[in-house]
């Protein structure tokens, strides 16, 4: 919200308080001033246009003015035509800077001298209007502009959603008064000024159809008004707050909105059929031409103000063009109502139309505010537009605001804040904020919040009121601490345990990435991994409309990103959850398995792929080992995303964790990548669950004997199968066995391969003799021969 410093001084004495100090106080109390703009008008002078004529030569339409600057006349050229002879205008002379930063120079435009410029409201930062020269209603030529318009300061402030009362200058001034310990100069509820006959409620019949959506509707009648421009000071304040002046009646409704935060609307009474007002939901096929010139299609969930025949306004959002106040208007119906916040928000969203009014109603205004706003507006209309305010307005109030009382044990203030606030200070703060405080016999306080503070309902709310005005800066920082007789022992968090995995991967050159969990659902379908995908109903865009079911596509994307940036070799991983819908269970939360996935690049040859895959397998084993998990097994498998001949299921204690393999060529090429990608993705929680604290084993007392064994078998026999056979025949003396080389070629028959194993034998009781080891080796050979038809090299 835009707050005018000068306007605030209507309500609270700001003598000796700079705009910057005021902004700091407000920020400290919870109205965050995000920017402060000081508009210095002291260099601008007042001029009176003596003569205006078109520029004879210029291609664009320009106007040449002779301007009286009090004792001298200067020629000034402007593009806007509205500074006709007789206008009083702000003038910036060469060498000065106008508040928006533009520096004025002496110029010559198409052969005509231009000595200075006539300023628009926007150039003077007095509003957003740059369509024409700002025309003043008074001022003496040659005097500084500050004789009629004081220098300004505009604060752009963020008002939290619980404080609609601070969406008006009066509320902001009340806050400032509390912070400065100065009294507020204005009572919240103005006096009623109407006395004319007949009573207003006999002139317009008001009914509310849906009291849930409209808890109060005040319709005030004012007759015989004279519509015209509003006074200069009012227009100036409206502009400062970002509102365009229209005419005195509309301006007054806007002015009161900016003062009290109560939205108001004025109808031309003569144009209301009935005249009657009915607050109801829109009916099928109803339309409304709104004040912004757009024909709005209305739906049954929109609340409208209708006369006897048709909708004339969208409740709380915008008025209708057909019944708007115009220059011909004589009698008006002044609406001051209270509409349901969520309903206004819904309508405003459905129409894509957010107005000053809807922004306030959305935050749930107190119904009592409607009366204050109506009275204030009526008295301003009587004062500035003439007219008679009728007595006894229609005031339909089906849901009267309940008074709220809060019982406060004043010690709570110190207990919650953690510092001592003198009782008299707390009481004074509450009173300055218009709370009534009655100290009861037992020392507790019976507190009555002001009617405009619906946000205060519990004692803690009162603590906050005191705390924020007294100053949270004064609260000394402490660390909590008392004697605890119960506690939960510290366990390393999952993420700390997973740091072991990160270390293994970092050592192998893999860099951790964090990728978005929302991905393209279409892409998941293309990759055929969308079966358990959860799709967002209100996605921002197609490329992030679905929760990923695998981390691998994100990592393939990461490879592509880095290839695009000229990096050939890429190794990346991620530790994050995948999201798997429970099929068939409506509204069930999905499984969110925590996973680690890694992808590495290699060149396009089958051998390179195989080599990289073997290395990656060691990396995965290393990750599991680092978590103190048991060794995992690999079983040839088929899985989406993976190469059909190069994919293994990773199995731990009989449970499948995920897959390791080369990615399918179509996955790689689909991402626009060349070469082969090797990858794994496994669930981590089963590994963590299976991990155990390593127990120290006694160090071997007798030496080990190492033997190599080169086994020649058919291509179809796997190293895993051979290893199993070796272990079965090896008995207790075989303590370690591992395949380390694979050979095909001249020394091996066609269709066969040679796999070399290294075997370690050791006895815990004695030094093994060669003869003993030879016997076991013979057993092993025999076993492999029988089972796999193996032969042996060397």
């Amino acid at each position, binding site marked *: 919200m835009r707050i005018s410093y000068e306007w605030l001084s209507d309500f609270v004495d700001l003598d000796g308080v700079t705009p910057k100090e005021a902004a700091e106080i407000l920020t*400290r109390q919870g109205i965050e001033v995000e920017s402060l703009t000081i508009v210095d008008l002291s260099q601008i002078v007042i001029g009176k246009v003596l003569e205006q004529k078109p520029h004879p030569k210029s291609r664009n339409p320009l106007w040449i003015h002779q301007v009286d600057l009090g004792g001298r006349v200067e020629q000034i050229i402007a593009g806007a035509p509205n500074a006709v002879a007789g206008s009083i205008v702000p003038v910036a002379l060469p060498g000065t800077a106008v508040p928006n930063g533009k520096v004025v120079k002496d110029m010559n435009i198409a052969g005509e001298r231009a000595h200075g410029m006539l300023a628009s409201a926007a150039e003077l930062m007095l509003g957003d209007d740059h369509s024409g020269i700002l025309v003043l209603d008074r001022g003496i030529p040659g005097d500084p502009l500050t004789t009629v318009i004081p220098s300004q300061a505009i604060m752009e402030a963020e008002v939290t959603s619980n404080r609609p009362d601070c969406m008006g200058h009066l509320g902001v001034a009340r806050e400032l008064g509390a912070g400065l310990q100065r009294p507020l100069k204005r009572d919240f509820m103005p006096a009623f000024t109407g006395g004319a006959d007949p009573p207003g409620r006999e002139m317009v019949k008001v009914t509310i159809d849906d009291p849930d959506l409209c808890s109060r509707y005040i319709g005030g009648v004012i007759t015989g008004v004279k519509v015209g421009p509003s006074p200069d000071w009012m227009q100036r304040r409206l502009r400062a707050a970002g509102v365009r002046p229209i005419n005195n009646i509309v301006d007054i409704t806007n002015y009161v909105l900016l003062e009290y935060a109560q939205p108001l609307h004025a109808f031309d009474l003569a144009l209301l059929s009935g005249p009657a007002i009915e607050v109801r939901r829109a009916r099928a096929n109803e339309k409304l031409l709104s004040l912004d010139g757009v024909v709005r299609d209305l739906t049954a969930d929109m609340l409208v103000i209708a006369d006897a025949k048709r909708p004339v306004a969208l409740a709380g959002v915008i008025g209708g063009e057909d019944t708007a106040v115009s220059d011909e208007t004589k009698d008006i119906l002044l609406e001051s109502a209270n509409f349901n916040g969520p309903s206004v*928000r819904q309508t405003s969203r459905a129409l894509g139309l957010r107005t000053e009014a809807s922004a306030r109603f959305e935050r749930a205004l107190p119904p009592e505010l409607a009366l204050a706003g109506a009275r204030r507006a009526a008295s301003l209309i009587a004062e500035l537009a003439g007219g008679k305010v009728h007595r006894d307005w229609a005031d339909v109030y089906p849901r009267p605001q309940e008074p709220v009382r809060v019982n406060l044990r004043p010690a709570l203030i110190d207990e919650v804040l953690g510092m001592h606030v003198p009782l008299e200070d707390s009481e004074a703060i509450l009173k300055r904020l218009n709370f009534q405080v009655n100290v009861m016999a037992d020392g507790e306080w019976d507190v009555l919040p002001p009617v405009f503070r619906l946000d205060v309902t519990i004692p803690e709310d009162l603590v906050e009121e005191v705390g924020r005005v007294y100053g949270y800066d004064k*609260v000394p920082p402490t*660390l909590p601490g008392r004697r605890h007789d119960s506690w939960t022992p510290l366990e390393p968090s999952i993420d700390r345990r997973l740091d072991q995995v990160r270390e293994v991967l970092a050592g192998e050159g893999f860099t951790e990435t964090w990728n978005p969990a929302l991905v393209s659902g279409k892409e998941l379908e293309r990759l055929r991994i969308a079966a358990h995908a*959860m799709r967002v109903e209100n996605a*921002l865009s197609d490329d992030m409309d679905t929760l990923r079911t695998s981390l691998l596509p994100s990592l393939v994307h990461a490879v592509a990103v880095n290839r695009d940036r000229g990096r050939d070799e890429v190794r990346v991983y991620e530790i994050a959850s995948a999201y798997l819908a429970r099929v068939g269970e409506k509204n069930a939360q999905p499984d969110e398995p925590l996973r680690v996935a890694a992808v590495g690049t290699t060149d396009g040859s089958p051998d390179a792929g195989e080599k990289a895959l073997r290395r990656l397998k060691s990396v995965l084993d290393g990750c599991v080992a680092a978590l103190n998990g048991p060794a995992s097994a690999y079983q040839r498998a088929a899985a989406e995303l993976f190469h059909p001949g190069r994919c293994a299921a990773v199995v731990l204690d009989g449970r499948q964790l995920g897959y390791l393999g080369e990615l399918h060529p179509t996955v790689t090429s689909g991402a626009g990548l060349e070469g082969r990608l090797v990858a794994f993705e496994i669930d981590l929680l089963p590994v963590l669950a299976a991990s155990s604290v390593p127990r120290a084993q006694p160090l071997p007392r007798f030496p080990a004997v190492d033997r190599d064994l080169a086994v020649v078998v058919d291509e179809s026999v796997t190293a895993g199968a051979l290893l199993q056979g070796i272990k079965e025949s090896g008995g207790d003396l075989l303590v370690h066995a591992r395949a380390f080389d694979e050979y095909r070629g001249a020394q091996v028959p066609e269709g066969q391969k040679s796999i070399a194993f290294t075997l370690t034998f050791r006895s815990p009781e004695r030094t093994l003799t060669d003869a003993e080891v030879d016997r076991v080796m013979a057993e092993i050979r025999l076993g492999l021969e029988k089972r796999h038809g193996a032969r042996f090299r060397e």
Partner: protein
Amino acid sequence: MSDPLGLTTQALAAIGQARTDEELEKVEVEYLGRKSGHVSRLLSNIGSLPPAEKAALGKAANDAKRAIEAALAARRAELEAARLADLAETEAIDMTFPGPPLKRGHIHVLTQVRREIETVLESLGYKVELGPEVETEWYNFEALNIPAGHPAREAWDSFYFSPELLLRAHTSPVQIRAMQRIKEPPIYIINPGRAYRRDPPEATRLPYFSQVEGLAVDKGLTVGDLKGTLLYMIQSLYGRDRKVRVRPSYFPFTEPSFEFDVSCGICGGMGCKSCRHKGWLEVGGCGMVHPQVLRNGGIDPTRWNGYAWGFGIERMAMLKHDVDDIRLFYESDLRFLEQF
């Protein structure tokens, strides 16, 4: 040659002339070699001599052997000392020549920052709690005192799967779940994790981000305790000269509520370009837990009270490492990730 004295003289001269270990080795073999060395041969001949000569020659030969051994050892030491003295020239290499590149992977900067935050808070006794990212409407909103139609819901525009199920807009639901599970305070927990809001991606915010929230529920906790905890955390992460300011704000789940700011590390709070002349950098939100929220977590607010806070890990990382675009964290560009 059969004169021990003569042999000794000869041997010592040869030792003195030896320039290398190999030459010394040769001299040693020539004189002391087991079979063919001069001294060994002398000793092996002793058996055939008459007893009177035996003793004298035996002693002379052994003296010669000891003298030669001593001279060999001394010369070896000399040569070794000389070799060591010359290493600077003899084995010098180009020390400016670079090593081969190390293929070290990097841990994501957000992981690093999250780890630091967790470590600091664990030192105060907070424990990490995790929870689901796809949440129910109740845990994400209702339990946190944000009923349907509440104007504050505007601030948490969320991604929905159905009217009841959504991506959590903050990690606060974990706090409710933790209170329900732990039941009996004291509760000191932090809940790091991903959260989602329907904001289009830009340099300062993303529809997905990561938070660390904290919750303390105990007896007699105060705003001062909240301030102290935040100050301890910020000073531990950014240095002891940093200050923390709490500014009143509004959240439905805390009362009173605050935004908390950290003094600008560049100007020390005086105001500079980096902090947009405010002297303070906005970090997160916090407050004393609303009694209704405690009740929703199954905690009796007449016996216990609490405070809570939350902030974005990305924001903390941006402040710490001068990152100016939040999108960099999620783009997997190694040129960025390898800087940390």
